[in-house]
């Protein structure tokens, strides 16, 4: 442990890769609870400003309550290794902030759409969104205590979820349950990637 070598290590640090998974769903469905169940930090909130014209940020935003809206996103962090960090981002609940969803899903590993079985119709808008995006996603049914229990296939039919989209039951408050949802997202992303590779590319690379 000499000083010179640690100096060199400081000058040429190892590349740290960060990945993200998006937790989507309607307002109040338990996205932040889900993030908090596995995050190593208390979920943080980051805010973006937008003008009423929806053109994103603007320096007229100094006028309080006029022409600007703050969009808040909650997120958490899992440091998996010295050189690998996974972030979990909850989408803003209100669907009119879809421009922010576009930024969130850019480069994401995949997404979980969280559905509250007591308010299934709140899931229509988020599901519509992902049906039209090129990002692997699954549907996670958040089963609170006392929430109406449906068979997964009933929910699939009610929400018209495509057969290739995985559907799993979960409890957003429980770490192990949330872990299974995230494992499901990554496995689905891998399966999607393999399928795309098989369809889209000749096997003669390199």
């Amino acid at each position, binding site marked *: 442990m000499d000083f010179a070598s640690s100096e060199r290590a*400081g*000058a040429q*640090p190892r*590349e*740290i*890769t*960060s*990945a*993200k998974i998006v937790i989507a769903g309607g307002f109040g469905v338990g996205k932040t609870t889900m993030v908090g169940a*596995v995050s190593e930090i208390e979920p*943080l*909130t*980051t*805010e*973006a*400003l937008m003008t009423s014209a929806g053109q*994103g*940020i*603007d*320096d007229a*935003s*100094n006028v*309080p309550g006029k022409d600007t809206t*703050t969009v808040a*996103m909650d*997120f958490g*962090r*899992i440091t*998996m*290794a010295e050189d*690998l*960090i*996974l*972030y979990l*981002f909850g989408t803003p609940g209100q669907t009119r902030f879809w421009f922010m969803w576009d*930024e*969130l899903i*850019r*480069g994401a*590993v995949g997404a979980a759409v969280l559905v509250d079985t007591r308010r299934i119709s709140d899931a229509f808008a988020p599901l519509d969104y992902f049906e039209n995006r090129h990002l692997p996603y699954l549907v996670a049914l958040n089963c609170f205590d006392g929430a109406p229990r449906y068979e997964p296939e009933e929910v699939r039919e009610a929400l018209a979820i495509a057969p290739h989209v995985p559907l799993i039951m979960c409890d957003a408050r429980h*770490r192990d349950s949330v*872990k299974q949802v*995230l*494992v499901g997202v*990554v*496995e689905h*992303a*891998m399966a999607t*990637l*393999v399928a795309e*590779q098989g369809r889209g*590319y000749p096997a003669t*690379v390199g």
Partner: protein
Amino acid sequence: MGQPYDPRGNLVRPYAVTRGRTEPRRDIPIEAVLVANQAGVQEARFAGHDKYRIAVLCEPRAQSLAEVAAYMRLPLGVTRVLVADMVADGLLLLHSAAPRQGFTERMDLLERVLSGLRKL
């Protein structure tokens, strides 16, 4: 109320800290992480209060753009402008977000994330 009265209040334009610039010098993904070394922190002392605080924040531990914005209590767009400046000026090192191209690169990352999740 609980918050002490801030005489600047809402009159501080969010982009005042960037001197009105709203376009970052480079796009930085929300999850990309930033690291400052000791030399960067020392240099950032002369780059203004906000940039110095960002450097201090990123010295002990890598922080994503989203974390910097949250801890600094600055809007994401403002933070992105400041951080992009700092990367360009060598005060912060920007690490890469997950690869978006290349089957092998993407698969390797997914496998590492999967194994990390299983170990939780």
